[in-house]
């Protein structure tokens, strides 16, 4: 879909990008990563001709990008940037309509598209259409930025650290949403970041750059397990096993059948029944299936009264979602001192849980899990 052939960019004596060749297949996410000044942003900006290469050729969908005017080219490539770059004087709807307007779409078509896109990025169209960017939180603004890039349904998305300016929690949510949207839309994406975890989580392939040179271009697994150079090895970090967990989602290893009880009052009778035989913890849910806490059978057996064996929790804090990465889930488990963690949907309904043992299994038997991006099974861990 996107092909770079021996592309170089020189600024006088300085070489920003040196003889870079790269191919991104249709529907793949290619993450450009490297230390600052490695040429990743320059590379991205050469694809939509915000920067003209000194030499080499870039093809999008088989056509040389210089065969059309830069404006025409850019209208066909979605573009999202770190500081969002939303137009502050235009409403959310107006921002999203930027490219369709340039392309001369009619109004009903554009409005329908705005509704569709806001829903896609998880914002209520009725609430957000007429807001101005300054009324949005950082995360909301980033979502609108992504919606705007998708507006004219371009086959290619260029994203320059699109989630760079938000807090880690929002970032985690945005990454999960992006993975979901990408699974649905299958765009060809070039994504620049300096965050290794983000790259591992989102990439089909990672292009690791240094001083304008491509160090290695391969799947995240390959970069983690078979680094081509010492630099790649060092850059990916020592905690490679942990990082690989960033590729696996909770839903891939989740235990779906978990013992539950409706409320804590019947704990004693419950505990005497079979539930405690098969599991140490029995989850407590309300009538709607929402997680309220859990009952510790061991503590109960050791002689504590039922009331003291119950832990009440807020599902927003004590549980993870199916699309959370295992790495995140593990870190939450360790942080809270649990050996397992509940999995809930967006409304707090209990879906299952993930146990430390399950994660260990994943780490040792590499081929036993499926990566959400469809990567190849691992054998040599």
């Amino acid at each position: 879909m996107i092909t770079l052939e021996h592309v170089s960019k020189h600024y006088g004596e300085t070489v920003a990008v040196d003889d870079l060749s790269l191919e991104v297949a249709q529907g793949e996410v290619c993450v450009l990563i490297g230390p600052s000044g490695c040429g990743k942003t320059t590379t991205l900006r050469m694809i939509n001709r915000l920067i003209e290469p000194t030499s080499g050729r870039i093809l999008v969908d088989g056509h040389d990008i210089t065969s059309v005017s830069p404006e025409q080219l850019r209208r066909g490539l979605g573009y999202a940037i770190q500081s969002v770059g939303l137009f502050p004087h235009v409403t959310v709807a107006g921002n999203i309509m930027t490219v369709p307007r340039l392309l001369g779409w009619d109004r009903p078509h554009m409005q329908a598209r705005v509704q569709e896109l806001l829903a896609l990025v998880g914002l209520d169209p009725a609430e957000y259409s007429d807001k101005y960017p300054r009324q949005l939180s950082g995360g909301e603004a980033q979502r609108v930025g992504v919606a705007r890039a998708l507006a004219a349904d371009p086959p290619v998305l260029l994203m320059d650290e699109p989630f760079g300016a938000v807090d880690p929690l929002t970032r985690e949510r945005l990454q999960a949403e992006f993975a979901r949207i990408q699974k649905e839309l299958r765009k060809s994406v070039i994504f620049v970041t300096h965050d290794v975890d983000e790259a591992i989580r989102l990439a089909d392939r990672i292009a690791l750059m240094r001083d304008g040179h491509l160090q290695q271009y391969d799947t995240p697994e390959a970069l983690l397990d078979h680094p081509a150079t010492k630099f790649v090895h060092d850059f990916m970090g020592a905690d490679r096993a942990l990082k690989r967990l960033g590729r696996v989602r909770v839903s891939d290893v989740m235990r779906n059948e978990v013992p539950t009880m409706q409320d804590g009052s019947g704990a004693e009778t419950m505990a005497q029944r079979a539930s405690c035989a098969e599991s140490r913890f029995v989850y407590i849910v309300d009538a709607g299936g929402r997680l309220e806490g859990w009952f510790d059978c061991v503590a109960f057996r050791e002689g504590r009264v039922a009331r003291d064996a119950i832990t009440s929790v807020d599902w927003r804090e004590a549980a993870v979602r199916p699309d959370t990465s295992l790495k995140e889930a593990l870190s939450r488990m360790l942080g809270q001192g649990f050996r397992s963690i509940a999995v809930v949907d967006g409304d707090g309904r209990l879906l299952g849980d993930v146990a430390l043992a399950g994660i260990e299994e994943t780490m040792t038997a590499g081929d036993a899990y499926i990566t959400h991006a469809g990567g190849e099974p691992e054998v040599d861990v």
Partner: protein
Amino acid sequence: MALVACLALPFAVLRPNRIVAGVSHAVWSAGGFGLLLVAACLAGAVASVATLRRRGSWLLAAASAITVVLAWALGAAASTLLRGAAPFARVSIGGGAWLALAGAAVLWFAGAHGERGRWALGVSSSVATLGLLGAGAFGGLGRLSIAVEYANQGPQFWQLVGTHLAVAGTALGIAMVIGVPFGVVCARAPRVRAVVLAVVGIIQTVPSLALLGLLIVPLAALGLPGIGPLPGIIALTLYALLPIVRDTYVGLAGVDAAIVDAGRGMGMSRSQLLLRVEAPLALPLVIEGIRSAAVLVIGIAAVVAFIGVGTLGQLIFLGIGQTADDLVLLGAVPMVVLAIAADGALRLLSRALVSPGIREAAS
């Protein structure tokens, strides 16, 4: 304090004729005092309470009340003092009355600042206007010296106002047509910017009379008259350029680079970027530049009366020549009113045109 001042200082001045010094009269000896005194005390009290409670509408009410009552009191004073005086006798507005008016203005602006609702502004300003008109028609305000001067000038006064506006307006229009593009060029080309901003900056430092003098030579070389409306308009245009060029440039330069990058990256051409992104974002500052230029030009338009243009400045020069203070006032007061009106109109325009998405940041 303003209350004390307006009571202690002379309220109105009675003169045998328009030129010689007159006899001062305090507020209680000048008729209508009861009315003013009550109103001023009341307004003062209300205003001070209002400031404590931070209620702008009370300040506005006090301001309009003072204005109206002041007008009627002055009218009454004029009528009383002129009763039985010689036919050429004049009554001028005294320092106390001016201070009271200034106090009302201060209250007014403080109130307008604190008041969010617009209706209070509208109601109080229409009350003040109606009260003033009423005082003019029935309250004897027409007997004041400044009004007599106005009557003497007759239609010529409005002609001067018209010329004043025409000259200032034309110059402002030309300056906008030239200045805004220059501002755009400044934002685009750093080298041009240095030259253009230096030139308009230098023009600004030339005193207005000197500039009029300096224009005579080059105009003569072109075979054009060195006096009259043409050099006047040229001079005013030159003065208006600096604020417009500078603020247009500053407005455009202040647009966030990331926003411009996003627009470019989405396929906007240079003109689309300018018209759809940069211009709307720079608009508050551009209008601000035009606003300062308008106020500046209305002021300097008085000076071009020196080269034979019939602006309000003529009344001022005439009044100074004849030592007729009230004739000077007849020239000066309308100029202040024009400047305030232009200022207000452009502020309203800014409110109407600037996107609500950036309005807060702009004001």
